[in-house]
Each structure stands twice: as structure tokens, then as C-alpha cells.
């Protein structure tokens, strides 16, 4: 019975990690899209010659997507895979 409970707990942990990171991605992307829809002048701000805030934020969405994936992969390769190995015994 212990093994079944441990498995259930691991499934719950995995779901929490996955859903938190997904919500993070959703927030980042829709934050950007809503700025495009509602605050065009802000995104038009020029930071340095040639670089607008819009371009910086757009590129950041892509970079942050990489960062979130990296966070997930590090967690999964470490903690998660170790727990699976323990469960397999």
C-alpha cells in the first residue's frame, strides 16, 4: 500500500510542478499579448538607439520559455527521475 501512496504523491507533485510552470508560461505570453492589445505606446518606448521595449519583451518571451523548460528539465532529471527509480526499487 505504501508504494501506491508514494506513487499517488509523486503524481500530485508532478501535476503541481507542471501546472505552475504552465501558468507561468501563460502569464508571460498573455502579459505580452495584452500589452500589444492595450498599451501600444508603452511598447513603442525606445530604450537605446534601435531597440524598442516591444522588441525586447517579445524576444524575452522566447528566452523565458527556454528558462521555464530548463527549470522543468532540471527538476525532472533530478528529483522526479530519482523518485521513479526509488519506486521501481
Amino acid at each position, binding site marked *: 500500500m505504501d508504494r501506491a501512496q508514494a506513487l499517488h504523491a509523486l503524481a500530485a507533485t508532478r501535476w503541481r510542478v507542471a501546472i505552475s510552470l504552465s501558468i507561468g508560461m501563460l502569464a508571460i505570453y498573455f502579459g505580452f499579448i495584452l500589452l*500589444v492589445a492595450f498599451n501600444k505606446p508603452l511598447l513603442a518606448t525606445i530604450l537605446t538607439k534601435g531597440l524598442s521595449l516591444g522588441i525586447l519583451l517579445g524576444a524575452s518571451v522566447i528566452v523565458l520559455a527556454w528558462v521555464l523548460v530548463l527549470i522543468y528539465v532540471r527538476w525532472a532529471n533530478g528529483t522526479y527521475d530519482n523518485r521513479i527509480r526509488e519506486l521501481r526499487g
Partner: protein
Amino acid sequence: MGAETNSIAIVFFFLFIALTLGITYWAAKKTKTASEYFAAGRSITGFQNGLALAGDYMSAASFLGIAGIVALNGFDGLIYSTGWLVGWPIIVFLLAEPIRNLGKYTFTDVVAYRLQQKPVRIATAIGTLIVVLTYLIGQMVGAGTLIKLLFNLDYTTAVVIVGTVMMIYVLFGGMIATTWVQIIKAGLLLGGASIMAILVLAQFHFNPAELFAAASEKYGSKVLEPGTKVVTGAWDAVSLGLALMFGTAGLPHILMRFYTVPDAQQARKSVAWATIWIGAFYLITFILGFGAMVLVGQDAVKAANPGGNMAAPLLAKALAGDMFFGFICAVAFATILAVVAGLTLSGAAALSHDLWVNVVRGGKAPEKEQLAVARMASVILGASAVLLGILFQGQNVAYMVGLTFSIAASANFPSLVLSIFWRPFTTWGAVSAILFGAFGTLLLIYLGPTVQIDLLGPGPKDPAALKAHTDMVMAQWWFFPLKNPALFTMTGSFLVGMLVSLIAPERSASAGFDEVERRAIMGET
């Protein structure tokens, strides 16, 4: 573009065809079982599959199309690029590993795992086939038009060539050949685009900001700001965003790729690599678009093709001459070919594995028969792709991509997520969620501005008539105001699926959830 056929491009293209047909010959000898045909015998490594996933996803529309939108509009191209990337992390977090652990050849295996096989498989096969066919129409029409533009070949000839070569890959080489075609194409596309970006940036001290500054000097600072090209209304923007994000996570030919790797760890690795490649690709295309804007000029880009599709090839010509131009044209052609092959294979899997083997034959069909049916299904789909391509010639198919992603997000994604993560999900919950998502999307797109105004209206040539038509349509009670319905159809699909499941619980389905939970983590052991 002169009137003569682009001969250097054709030489490069034939080299690509020769190489990939050689691979197909090798793959055909290794393809003896259904597992080899649909899942490359689970022999692809995570890194290789990451490249192949990127290859499946980086269509000619995104390479030529986004570079063109950026060249003509600047910043706005970035809105598409981010939208097309952000679905990938969602696949990494929620789907890749459970799909690999729970299924065999198609994502339908996962949805049907603890439910009644027949109704669920029929419904998901409908979802899959609608997505595959709409995506194929968009790709084939795009292929015919682009090849005409790039090689000066006749539209019908181009569509037939693409259909025939693709069918040879899929028919004889199955998933092994398709995967290696994708890997080679992804390598050529990423390599070619990177070389171009480096050549562009070399003229601006390797500082992108200097490139953007040169563009804003030439065309005004509006190229660095959000315009009105992509985002019209806020709700439209949110709805399109949802479709792009979750549609990616519902594309059958992408989900099918997770079965080609040996285990869940490799599935995770492959989709993480895919996210990196695809993100890099979109950043590179953004540089290429601005490069074309500055070094080729908007007038020259528009003169070659009003939609901007020639921006990237013309940039190649401006940077390194005819040879490189030919190379980039050939890469674009190869790109179309590879994407169409992946789509056809996933449609064939739905027809043969889901419908024939599991519905008609009740899950028991000899290996030989599975293979024969799979090959027959590939031929049927390949022929349909060619026919649809010819049928839709000259039509504006830009809306097809939005349609495809909306259906994928509304029909496939909700039932997939609920089946993996929600215990009370039932057979009829799944069937109603899928059918609501698929047909709700079709209906709302038909009642929306894309069909009622853009397609059925009098067109932009007569502004007064267009305005009168638009006013008339918008006053109808049935008119649906959003171009993209995913906001309603995707959330609706989740709600319908959950509601139907709660109204009529299914004991065996919820009892099976413990096994789903266990197997999603542990795999087959």
C-alpha cells in the same frame, strides 16, 4: 524574378531528393512491422527527435511568411513568432512524458486508455483527420504558390511533385524515412538561416540594435512598434493566442513523434530540444526580416510578392549571390515536402491504427494486415492532399492555419488533458468534448468575419461595397464577431467534457484512473 526557371535551385533540390530517396530505400528495408512503420521502432534518440519535431513544425509558411511579415511590418512579426513558440513548453510540462508512457502510435491511444475504445477512437480520429486535412490544404496550396514563385514551375506540376515525392517517403520508408527527412531538413533550414543571419549581422558590428536602428532610419520608428497588422481587437488577440498556444499541443503529427523514442526520459529530452531549436529559429527569422527590410528594401520585396514571401530568398541573393539564393529556395521546397510527409503519416495512423485496427477489427489484426492498411491509408491521404491542393488553387488559404490550430486546441487538447489528469472523465465526456470542439470551431469560423466578410464579401477592391456588406453581415443575429473562436470553443470543450462526465459517471473509467496515473509515471513496467 526572371521568366527563366531557377536552375541552381533545381540542382540543389534534386540533390536533396536524391539523398532523401536514398534514405527512404534504406528505411524501407528496415520497415517490417507496424511499430517500425509508425514509430520508427522506437529507435530515435531524444536529440534526433528534437530536431525532427522542429522539422515537423518549422513550415515554409513560418520561414518565408514570418520573414516577409517582419520585412514589411517590422515588430508585428514577433507576435506570431512568440505565439507559435509558447505551446512547446506546455507540451514539455503536461503532455510529452504521459503520452509516451500511455500510448502506442497515436494520441488517441492515450485518450482511449481507460475509456470505451470504439466511440472514443472514432471521435478522436475525426478530430485528427480534420486537423490533418485542413493543415494539408494550407500546406499544399502554399507549396504550389511558393514553388511557382521560387522555381517558376507550373502550380499543378508543383503540387503533383510534392505529393508524389512525399508519398514515396511515407509509403515505403514510414516513420524512419520521415524522421530522417525531417532531421536533414531541420539541419538545412537552421543552418541556412543561421548563415544568413550571421552575414546580415556582420554588416552591423554583430549588434542587432544597429540593424533595427538602420531599419527605423530608413522606414521610420513605426517598424519597431506594434502596428495594426496582426492584433485588431483585444478579444481577437486573446483568442488567437489561445489557439496558437494550445493548438500546438493538439497537433497529431507532433504528438505522434513522442512514440519514436525509447522512453519518457527521451521524450522529455526531445521536446526540450525542439523548444530550443524552434525558439532560436524564430529569433533568427526576426533578424532575417529586418535584414531584408534594410538590405533588400520593402519595395523590392513587395515587387517580387505582395505578401512578402520572397523576403528571405531575396536577402540570400543580396548577401551571397545566385548560388545561395538557389540553396535557400531549395531548402524552402524541402521544408514543404517534409511537413506534408509528417502530416500524411499521422493521418494514416488515425485511419489504420485507430479506425481500422481498433474499431473495425476490435484491436486484433495481424502485423501484415496493419502494415498493408497503413500503406493504403497513406496513399489515400497523399492523393487527397494533391486533389485538395488543386481544388483550392488560387483560394486565400491564410485562414486555414488559424482554423487548424483552433480545431487542434478545441477538439484534441481538452480531451487529451482531461483523460490524463482528471479522474471522473468518461467515454461520452470525451466524445462530446471532441465533437463540440471540432464542429463548434467549424461553425463559428463559418459564421465569423473570415468567411462571411473576407471570403464571401466583395473584396477590398470596392471599399464602399465591402463596407455595406460588412455592416449588413454584422447586423445579423448569427454573426460571430471574432476571427478566431478558440476562446469559446476550447473553454467550451473543457466544460462540455466535464459536464457530461459528471452527469453520467462511468465507473470503469474512474476505476481505470489509478492505472493511468501509475503508468503515466512508470511506463509499461
